[in-house]
Structure formats: C-alpha cells, structure tokens
C-alpha cells in the first residue's frame, strides 16, 4: 500500500487545532474524540502544560484513582518543575505511594491546601465534594465514560473545559432503572458528552486521527466496526510491527493460531460448537495454553521505535474476558501452567491499557443466548483494541448463528438518540463483525480446534 498519508503530520495538525481552540477559542468547551491508542494521555499532558504556562488555573478531572495517579506521574515526568496538586480521598490507600517521591507534587485530602497550585488533579467523585471559587479551566478526561450526573456535580467548578475521551468504549451505566429520563438531553445516566453536546451543539469537536497503538492490521477493522463516523488510521504501516518466534510451531492449535496472529495481526482459535458454562474449562485452558506457548516459543517483537527484536515478556501480554469469574479461571489456569506476570482482567478494567499481545475469550463463546451485556459493542471494542502487535481470539464455533438467532425486540425510547453526538454510533447488531467471527464457516470433519486469521488478509 502506498499512500501520501503522513500519520505524524495528521496527528500534529489535529493537536494544534485542539490546542488552539482550547487556549484561544471563544467557546466554553472543546470536545475531543480519541480512538484507542491515539495519544489521549499525551494530549492531556500537553494541554495541561500549555494551559498552566498560559497562567490559567487548571483542574483536571479523571474517573478513577488509577487514571489520576497515572496523569500525575506523566505530568511530573514531562515537566518536573510544574507544581501539581493531587487531591485525594481520606481512605487508607487513596493514591499510588510512588507519588510521594515526586517533589513537584503536593498530596492532600483538603482542597484548601492545593488552592494556590497551578494544576490540581482528582477524580470526579472527589471533585464533587469540593466547594471553592471556580477554576479558570478544566480538563475532563475519559469524558465518554463519565456519567452526565457526575458532570453536573462538578461543572460549577470551572469556567471552561476540554473534554477528552474514547467514544467507542463501554458506556456508563446505572444499577437502577433510569428509563424515565431516556430521551432527555440531561438524562443523568447518559454519558457526560452526550448531555454537553445536546445543550451546546456549537462546541468545536475534534478527533485524533491516528492510532499509535493499533497496528496496520487492526486499525481499519476496529475503525470500521466501532467508529463508523470517526474513522481513524494506524500510525504504522504494514510490516512495521513484527511478531516472531524463536521456536517453530509444533503443529498444535495454539501454535498455529499464534503463527496466524503473527502474520495477520489476528487469529481465531475456534473450538467445536458446544453450549458451555461461562468458565468453559476447555476454552479457558486454550487461552492459557496460547499464552504459555507464546512465552515458550520465545516470542520477540520489533516495531518502528525499536527495530531490534526484543523478547515478549509476560508483562506485555494481556488476557481479556467479559466476566470476572472467567478472568479468575484463566488466572488459575495460567498459574497451573506456571505462567505469572500476565495481566488477566475484564474489559472494564482493561480500558485505557496497552499490550503487545492480547488473548481474548470471546464474550459469546459457548453461550446459548446473547444478552445486552454480551452484545455491548463497547466491551468488544475494548477487547479488540488493546494490542500493538496481535490479538488472538478464543471462541466456540457458532457465534455467527447465535447472532443471527438473537431476538431483536428492543424497546425504543422517543428522542433517545437525539442527544447523542454524531460520533457516538455503535455498529448495529447483529451486523458487527468480530474479527473473523462472521465469516462462513467451512464444514470440517473432526472435533479439534480450528485456526483462522483475518479472512481478508493477503498472502
């Protein structure tokens, strides 16, 4: 593929426009859609520094303590001189102890202690309890995962704000019914961005056009399936990311799917169709074995930053599941294979994280029925967009049929889509393509696992 597309230049142009609107725009808000691995954190750090440099007193709102701590560490690494306040709760383990080592960071549970600092960072939950004179500017991170009511609780604290988030990931939710407000522009259970844009449609909306994480094999597919209205591209071209093994395939299913994934970026390890419990022992075992074989075979990766092949370590591998009990089952299967140091978590907890190789237990594997939970496109999007090199999906056969047989009798709430930003459009079930999941499955004798890569790949 030859193209005049220069990802670095495209990303720079987008960033410049965002910073211009943020620093010099007339509107009170700027919204930035950031697909997976498009440099959202880099943008937030840069915007924070420029706002601080411009003398704007800044508050930063993130959604979890881990996100807050991560931002503080990044800011301190980038600009050790910048005075940053980390507002935390009074719980025992409210923040990452590593923050104590940073001389530029002040830690406190009392907003008054941090009032004079140029930048203060905390979670939305903590900010909601703060009573103070408004800050001149705010950066709201992970704004699509923030609920509208959480924004309501903190919006009085700032004059203007930059909202940054990934529209393709998991929607916020409520454990109690909120249907009575569906369709209202300020539905408290909807995402903060949908409320913001419903009331302020004139706000400038930007998007980061390049995913630096997803390889050339993944970006087009993820973009098409989960971001139909805000397409993005990979920052790397075909062949720039390489995954290879020191040991040749032993011909087993896991080895063949790893080879397939190394070549195509995707691999599907398909087990024979069967209705199974959620913690399908065979599928869980297969997931663990794939991980084990990747390590045993001395996997090495090379990329645009370090062309010299480097060993793929356990810390660069993640396993993603839909349910916690599945994650627990995979963890114990890995432990029994003597593997440690690999991240195993649910889609929820993998949001915002990045690995070289991911192994995903398909949320619909072995299920007799799909539910809204398993069909949530945000969940699939998270699982399919964590990797820099390759993603292996483990699933029982029959998912395409399951989707076709899924009843479609959803209630429709009047006006419910009116408030949504145009960029937030999940692909329609059952038409979403899971990598390889919707292809016609050739009939096959024998019950062993089957390996498939991307059907569209070129040899």
């Amino acid at each position: 593929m030859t193209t005049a597309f220069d990802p670095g230049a495209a990303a720079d142009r987008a960033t410049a426009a965002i910073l211009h609107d943020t620093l010099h725009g007339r509107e009170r808000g700027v919204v930035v859609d950031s697909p997976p691995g498009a440099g959202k954190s880099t943008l937030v750090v840069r915007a924070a520094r420029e706002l601080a440099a411009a003398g704007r007193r800044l508050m930063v709102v993130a959604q979890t303590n881990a996100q807050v701590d991560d931002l503080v560490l990044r800011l301190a690494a980038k600009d050790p001189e910048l005075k940053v306040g980390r507002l935390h709760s009074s719980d025992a383990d409210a923040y990452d102890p590593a923050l104590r080592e940073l001389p530029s960071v002040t830690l406190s549970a009392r907003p008054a202690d941090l009032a004079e600092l140029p930048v203060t960072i905390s979670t939305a939950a903590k900010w909601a309890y703060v009573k103070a004179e408004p800050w001149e500017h705010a950066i709201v991170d992970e704004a699509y995962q923030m609920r509208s009511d959480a924004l309501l609780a903190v919006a009085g604290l700032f004059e203007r704000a930059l909202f940054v988030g990934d529209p393709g990931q998991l929607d916020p939710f409520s454990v109690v019914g909120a249907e009575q407000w569906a369709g209202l522009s300020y539905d408290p259970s909807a995402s903060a961005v949908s409320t913001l844009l419903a009331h302020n449609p004139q706000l400038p909306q930007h998007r980061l056009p390049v995913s630096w994480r997803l390889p050339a094999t993944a970006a087009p597919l993820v973009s098409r399936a989960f971001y139909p209205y805000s397409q993005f591209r990979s920052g790397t071209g075909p062949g720039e990311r390489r995954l290879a093994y020191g040991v040749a395939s032993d011909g087993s299913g896991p080895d063949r799917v790893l080879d397939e994934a190394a070549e195509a970026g995707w691999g599907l390890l398909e087990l024979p169709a069967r209705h199974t419990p959620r913690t399908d022992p065979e599928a869980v075992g297969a997931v663990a074995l794939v991980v084990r074989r990747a390590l045993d075979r001395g996997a090495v990766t090379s990329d645009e930053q370090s062309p010299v092949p480097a060993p793929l370590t356990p810390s660069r591998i993640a396993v993603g599941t839909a349910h916690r009990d599945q994650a627990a089952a995979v963890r114990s299967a890995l432990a029994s294979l003597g593997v440690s140091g690999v991240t195993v978590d649910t889609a929820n907890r993998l949001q915002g994280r990045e690995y070289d190789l991911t192994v995903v237990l398909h949320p619909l594997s072995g299920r007799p029925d799909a539910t809204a939970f398993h069909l949530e496109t945000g969940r699939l999007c998270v699982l399919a967009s964590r990797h820099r090199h390759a993603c292996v999906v483990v699933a029982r056969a029959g998912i395409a049929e399951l989707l076709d047989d899924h009843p479609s009798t959803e209630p429709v709430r009047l006006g419910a889509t009116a408030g949504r930003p145009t960029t937030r459009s999940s692909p329609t079930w059952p038409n979403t393509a899971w990598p390889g999941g919707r292809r016609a499955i050739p009939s096959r004798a024998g019950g062993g696992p089957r390996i498939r890569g991307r059907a569209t790949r070129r040899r």
Partner: protein
Amino acid sequence: MPLLSTLARLEAVRAGHARPLATVRHRHLGAEPLVLVPLTTAGEAGAPLGAMLGTDRHEPRILVIPQPRDRDLRWEFLGELARLLMPHIESYADAVEPAERTETDPETGRKTKVEAELCVDAPQIVVPSRAGIEYVRLLGRSMRFRRTAEEDPENPYPAPSQVPLLGRWFTHLAERSRVPGSSMLLAATDLLSRHWATGQSNLEDQHLGSLLAWISPPEGVTGAEWALRMELGRDQDGQLLCPPAGPATDPAFDNRLLAPAIAKFDAARASGGPRDGDAVRLAERAVRKLVVSQMENTWWQTWEAIDLLRTLPPGERTEERWTRDRWSFTGHRDRVRAGEPPQPRRDDAVTAAQKLATRETEQVRLDAQEALDDPLVMAGRRFAGEAFAGEVTEVAMEWSEGKRPRPRPLLTVATEDRPQLADEGGGKVFRSLDGRQQAFEFVRREEDGQLVLRVLDKMGAGREPVAGSVPEKGDRVCWTLFEHDARGGPKLPDPENTPWTHGGPPGSATAPALDAVTDEDLL
C-alpha cells in the same frame, strides 16, 4: 437471575409449587394497607372504567363509570376517587413525632442536625400488579395540573376539588415506588415474587392469579395445574375464569359483554329519560355488575397476597426503610402545605440526577439490609463471593503500636465459602455486632485456605476489648465484603445554579420551557 434464585425455580418445577426465596418479609406491611384495584378502558389513555378500594376487605368502595368516554362521568369518578382517598392520605398527616434531620448549611456547607417533624406513620397502597402502579402514575399525571373552580374561576371545565391534590399524591407515590425498598405504593405481584420462586418464568409471574396459584393452590391440586387454569381457563361463554388483574380488561370481556352493556346505557340515555330514570338506572346497574365481576376476583387475590406476606416475620431492617418512606411522606406533605406547584411534567437536570443518586444509594442499602436480615439472601451473597461464613479456629491478641495501644486481635477463620478476597491480603470485611457494623482487615490467606482477619473497631476505648466484642474460638460468624449502610452522594447544585453543560438554570434560553396547562390537558 442469580443462580440461587434459578435453583429455587428449578426446585419449584419439580415440587409443583412455589419455593421460598426469602425467610423473612422484606417489605413493610402496615396495620392498615389500602388496596386499590383500578380498571381502565382499552385504547384510551387515562379513561378509567372502575375501581375497587378500601382498607377493609369486606367493605370495598366501588366506583364504576357506565360510559368511560363521557367527560362528565369521568369527572364524577375522579372526584369521588379523590373524596374517598384524600381523607385516608391526610389522616396520616397530622400525627407527628419530633425528629432530627440533617441539613446542609448553605453558607458553610457543613451538615447540621435540625429539629423537624416526622409523621408517625404513612399511607400504604397495594395495587395488584406493576401495571397498576403505572396506572396510578398515569392518573396522577392526568389530574395534577387540573385547576378547580376555586383556583381558576374562568376555567370552563373546572376539576372537582381535591382532584388536583390526589393527582399530586399519586404522582408522589408512583415516583417513590421507584426507590428500591420503598413500601408506600406496592404491587402484589412484586411482593409475592420477591418472596417466592415459582416454576414458571418471570414474565408469567406478572399474572397475579397464576402466581398465587403456585404459592397457595387449593387442596389436592398442584400449583402448576392451578396456575394453568388461572391463566387460561374460560367458561362456556369464552370468559376468563380469573379475569386479568388489570388495569386492562380481557378483549373477550370488552367485546362480548361490556360493549353491548355500554351501548344499552347510551341508548337508555339517548331516549331522553332522566339520569335517574329507571331505564338508565337499570342499564347503569348492568354495566356496574359486569365491571365489578372483573374487579372482585383481583380484589380478593390482592388481599390473599397480603395475608401470605403476613405469615413471614418482618425483616429487622424493614422498619428502618419504612422510616425513610415516612420522611418522604412528611416531605411531600410539607411541600403541598407550603403551596408549592405540582410536580413538573419532566424533571429538571438537578432533580433527575438527585433522584437517580437516591435510588442508587437505596439499592445498595436494600441489598445490604436484605442480606443481613435473611440467611437465604445472605446465602446468595456468599455464593457470589461477597460474603462468607466460617468458624473461628484461633484468636491471638495483638495491640496497635503507639502511646496508647489498642486491641487489634487476629482471628483465624475456616470457611467453605469462596469470598472474592485478594490472595495477598488487604481490604476490609464486616460483621454485624448487635446491629452495628464491625470492621475487620483481611490480613492473608493461609496455605490451608484459612483466612486471617484483624479486628479493627467496636472494642471500646480501653486496652482490653469489651466483653463480647471479639469473636471467640468456635464461634460461627458471617462476614460481608460490603458495608452495611449506604453512603449518600455529594450535594448537587440547586436547580437555579444548573451549570452551562446541562442547559443552565431553568428558564434560561437553552433550558426547557416551563410548563403551562394547555388545551390538550382537557379531555
């Protein structure tokens, strides 16, 4: 559905009758619940057909509209409904006790205790089904914006007095019923299916007759058989043996019986006779008899549901939740008395967020309280790894460091349960000690699977723990990973300070327009 409830359903299939889902009653049932069985006319919003109501099952008050499309008759019905219900609701308004309420000082933001009045009891209305609750909401919406002749002398169609007031109360009750664990407006089907599992699906449990059949079938019949008869049985005229619990009626009833009777009533009136003439009265009585025949069964079934619930001992913490209902009742009483306008058509941004926050808090509270009150509910939490029961196998006294060492005993606990605790330790667990929450730190998991916990509080101020405050060797204790009470969320801005992200204060350019009563509100 949690697996434990699924298991109960499977058992019910095998047994042919319902199996318990609770060992105590998880909803408050007052001394004098009022049962309300409303019926509506098909195809028309808020056109009641009749109602049966009262606190005495043997003396129901019965209202029937012989021609539901007649606006005057509808007014009469709603006026009568208000005349019957408002005294009942208001009878709870004046018996009060002094209480304390936490308020936030607008100046300092500090929370302070304020003396307040709290109604000692509140009305409780039981309708047959969830659709009945929605109907109460609908009636509330149709009535609360009406103006009486007193309020608006120019109004060509003044509402009977108290109708707008009942509309506001119905609206309040229906909104309150969305708060988890609240008991001011309850559906009999919800009450029953919370406490018993049948051998049919959730959807089929919405049918009061068949749900009751599974729980208490007549002698000699299985619940499964009786439920089928209640659901589908028809007489030789094609009429259901067990009419639907409403508010919608059976189409076969509408078409074969009701429509001809209403037509006769129309004809009698059209023939020019006086309203109280014999022909009209006879026709009216015929409609009334038919409508009553559809409500009567449901009336008794709703009372039977209440009786069944009363056979269960009340959960210890249901009263605490009822106190919240009493606060809610008192609060609405105060708003009405202060002359505040009726609830708006749609919540503003702040009110919506506030309601959602309250419901989320109450859901957490309800989940915790039901588990603490009921070993069967706790079993479900234990199964989910959110609680564990075990035997204390060892107690080792330890003290905190510092000038005044405090007791921090270490317990070793053997359990068959599989709580979701991190292997490396950390995190807190809790037990209920005389109704108060006692905290423990999870220290580690031993090689043999036993858990080591450290007691953190409720041991008194001295160096030695107060007697009974530390579990002893051999004690069997249940710990939870969840806290026993729910914390409310942060204070939201006042509606007049709604931020720009949410449309600004109501009445500003981008905010939704204020309500006005329009022509369409008149039937």
